[in-house]
């Protein structure tokens, strides 16, 4: 089913808001992650870990799920489809993998945040941070964003078969006697 232009624009607006919001939330997480090795104040380390847990569960995870949901919906109700064009397939697979890793990683963040809540000063100063995950996440998310803007050409085999079928159907309709 191909949706009308109003619904398509609404979905696109929601998808853009969620996707760009996801990148922004990971940047906020990254700022907190960088605060840990940059300070020798245990209170800042405790606050940073608690902040990372809150930003992760209440901003990054909901925005990731919303970006995935609105992206799938947008693809399903437009002519782009979900499996017709390589750039859509790459974006979809990348988003699914990133969301899965995020959801699997967040319990680890909660464990660290719980530890930070009760840890003594020496233990807090010995705690590591979580910079690598956030950096990799931002790089891949920006990569997917660039792919979505440039939309490089390339039909998948499935997309090509669909186009051939639609072309044949259109030709049949044109040659149908009135």
């Amino acid at each position, binding site marked *: 089913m191909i949706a009308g232009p109003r619904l398509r624009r609404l979905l696109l607006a929601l998808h853009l808001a969620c996707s760009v919001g996801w990148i922004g939330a990971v940047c906020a997480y990254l700022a907190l992650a960088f605060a840990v090795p940059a300070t020798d104040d245990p209170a800042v380390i405790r606050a940073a870990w608690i902040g990372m847990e809150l930003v992760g569960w209440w901003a990054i995870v909901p925005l990731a799920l919303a970006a995935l949901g609105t992206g799938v919906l947008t693809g399903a109700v437009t002519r782009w489809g979900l499996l017709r064009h390589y750039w859509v397939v790459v974006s979809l697979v990348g988003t699914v993998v990133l969301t899965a890793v995020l959801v699997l990683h967040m319990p680890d963040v909660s464990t660290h945040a719980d530890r930070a809540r009760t840890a003594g000063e020496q233990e807090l100063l010995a705690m590591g941070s979580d910079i690598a995950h956030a950096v990799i996440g931002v790089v891949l998310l920006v990569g997917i964003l660039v792919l979505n803007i440039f939309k490089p050409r390339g039909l998948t085999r499935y997309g*090509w078969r669909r186009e051939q079928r639609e072309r044949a159907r259109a030709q049949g309709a044109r040659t149908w006697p009135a």
Partner: protein
Amino acid sequence: MAPEDRPTGPPAGESPPPVPSWVKYLLLGLATAAVLAVLVMLLVGGDHGPGRHLGSLR
């Protein structure tokens, strides 16, 4: 994915189009990055990997 940017139809042909070169380069780049990441983890040490994340589900 702007609805105004409509997909352009493929050139008519009998056989499916080949995998675009940008997809090949992208896959090559991702595979190289993954191999490098595994090598760094092996050389530096540590317990990082997908199993670590799955551990929290058990």
